[in-house]
């Protein structure tokens, strides 16, 4: 993709679906909260360790604190915070589970070690998925052998693909581009090679692409 990508210094991942920014928001809230908690606790520990180090002459009378109030506070505060986090995540999780009506359905089959994709218009591709931007797309997926998992980091989404049943994953891409796709459920020898690319195109390009005859078995591989 961009130049940085090649040299191993790229510390960012694009956010290219409608669900990605809200998930990021929750993620960064968690980061901030964790940082705050860590800093407070580490500071307390360091402060006590320095002030009350053995040999330091400080007041240690009344060291036997027994405070129910303190205990109750630090049970109640995490409880409330955790409940809030749970709710926030739950709302997003529910969104991931409920596709809007009129999605564009695309069939995906996982097998050791490739992804086969079949579009509504009949066009097929391997290890690549072309989708239009700005349209809700629903992937209907199954596996021919073991469990695989369809993961697009740029969309912040993944879904396991199981043999013997269908699972679904919906998303709406927001930015045209090429995004890596990987298999994230261990599926045998070439698990790490089972990937490809998601190509997000403008709606017109997608229309054209979907109705084209594939150029003789030449599918894009990233």
């Amino acid at each position, binding site marked *: 993709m961009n130049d940085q*990508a090649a*040299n*191993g*210094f790229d510390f960012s991942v694009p956010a290219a679906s409608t*669900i990605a920014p*809200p998930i990021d928001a*929750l*993620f960064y809230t968690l980061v901030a909260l*964790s940082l705050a908690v*860590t800093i407070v*606790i580490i500071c*307390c*520990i360091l402060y*006590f*360790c320095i002030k*009350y180090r*053995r040999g330091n*002459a400080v*007041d*240690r*009378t*009344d*060291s036997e*604190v027994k405070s129910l109030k303190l*205990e109750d506070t*630090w*049970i109640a505060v*995490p409880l409330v915070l*955790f*409940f809030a*986090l*749970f709710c*926030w*995540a*739950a709302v997003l*999780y529910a*969104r*991931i589970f409920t596709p809007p009506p009129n999605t564009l359905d695309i069939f995906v089959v996982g097998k*050791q070690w490739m992804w086969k994709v079949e579009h509504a218009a009949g066009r097929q591709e391997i290890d690549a998925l072309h989708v239009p931007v700005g349209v809700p797309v629903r992937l209907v997926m199954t596996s021919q*052998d*073991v*469990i695989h*998992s369809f*993961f697009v980091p740029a969309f*912040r*989404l*993944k879904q*396991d693909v*199981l*043999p*013997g*049943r269908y*699972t679904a994953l919906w998303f709406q891409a927001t930015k045209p581009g090429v995004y*890596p796709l990987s298999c994230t*459920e*261990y599926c*045998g*020898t070439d*698990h*790490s090679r089972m990937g490809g690319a998601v190509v997000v195109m403008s709606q017109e390009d997608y229309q054209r692409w979907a109705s084209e005859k594939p150029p003789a078995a030449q599918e894009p591989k990233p």
Partner: protein
Amino acid sequence: MTQARTAMARSYLSDGTTIRSWLTTSDHKRIAIMFSIAITAFFFIGGLAATLIRIELATPQGDVVSAETYNKLFTLHGIVMVWFFLIPSIPTTLGNFLLPIMVGARDLAFPRLNLASLYIYILGGIFTIVTVIAGGVDTGWTFYTPYSTMFSNSYVLLAAAGVFIVGFSSIFTGLNFIVTVHTMRAPGMTWFRLPLFVWAMYSTSIVMVLATPVLAMTLALIGIERIAGIGFFDPALGGDPVLFQHLFWFYSHPAVYIMVLPAMGVVSEIITCFARKRIFGYRFMVYAIAAIAVIGFLVWGHHMFVAGESMYAGLVFSLLSFLVAVPSAIKVFNWTATLYKGSISFDAPMLYALGFVGLFLIGGLTGLFLAATAVDVHLTQTYFVVAHFHYIMVGGAVMAYLGGIHYWWPKITGKLYREGIAQAAAVLMFFGFNLTFFPQFLLGYLGMPRRYHEYADRFQMLNVLSSAGAVVLALAYLIPLTYFTWSLFRGERAPANPWRATGLEWTIPSPPPTHNFTHTPQISDEPYAYAPDSRE
């Protein structure tokens, strides 16, 4: 009877020196020693696999080992580290050695069962080693179906048999501890006078006893499906692979608390001793341990948020996962508060204990990321998860285990080790650890999947950092091995109570006599009767 009397005075180490006297002993202390040797061996086997994993991952290409070998390496690493190292680590060594002494008993309730537990462990270990020699197993430590039953061409049955067998070792040890704590407490040792280490061992044992049979059954079903081709989990045979995941995690989530509760017990002993303070909120600590053990049974589905369980199941498991984090929070806060107005010294055990608190905190907080359903959808099966559990299991539990070994080393061996180098190793370990595993959080967020033999170029920088950290970490683990060996042969003799600690184990000689106590102790106070010198 007279024989027993003379044995009382003699240390357990000099009471019979033949190999046979060790191999047929029923002394909980000798069994603990033998366990610790076996477990250390397995730690290094698991560590060797980790070393190879990190070497392979230093470059994006799969250039050091083949894909098959890589898959076998992380499977071996996971199986060995979980079942042959961390689950038995603290219970069978420190627990075995100390639990009877801490409750004021002469031995565990069933000494021969304890020895059986050791031999079962070794039998399970032999199966695992034979698996490796035969050619290895490549399913990952989670044995997911239908890969493990129908598709893998490796030695799944042998490996599963090893894990199946070692499970009985867990069950026997747990059963023994439960009965000992219930029936063998010395007069005056009421439930709320038990050291937190004993509470931790007791709760852990309950989890072991109630969770492990499910694992045994699940592995047996895998065996049947693989051998007979009769289906439980394979959809081609009418089964459901998600059922396997439910059964596996019903055991394996409680199992993560089997790994961390003992560590929490050890840390409570160490922090009180080196801060010279009573533990802050003793009863809350007890209730927290119990709550973790109980709620821990109800959260297994958080490993399956994208695996095909229903949305409602996901939400319930998420809520319960947040709930199980509350008692852990209580513990972290109470440890911190224990330091307040203490008289703190920084001997090696204390450095490990403080390291535990910090790293467990980070591991636990990132557990919350994973419990938050929508965020887990992005992070699951990536290196973020790998980092999460190494923070708790390596940064937390292994640190605590090493802290405990240092703390009780003088008691167990009767020898002292060199403090300076021990402190240096602890600090080195802390830095090596963070360098190894912190970059993996970033890798996970950026989207690098776990169990990958090859990876995209853009992840290389962070992987190199991680591999470099692993070298530091490996060195840091080798240092204690050397100075402990030195201490065994050249170390100064340890007094009965080198740390001026409270607790029954410090009232008897180092090393303890065969039957621990010459007369049954009487207990009349809460544990941790420390008082900081008000001005020192």
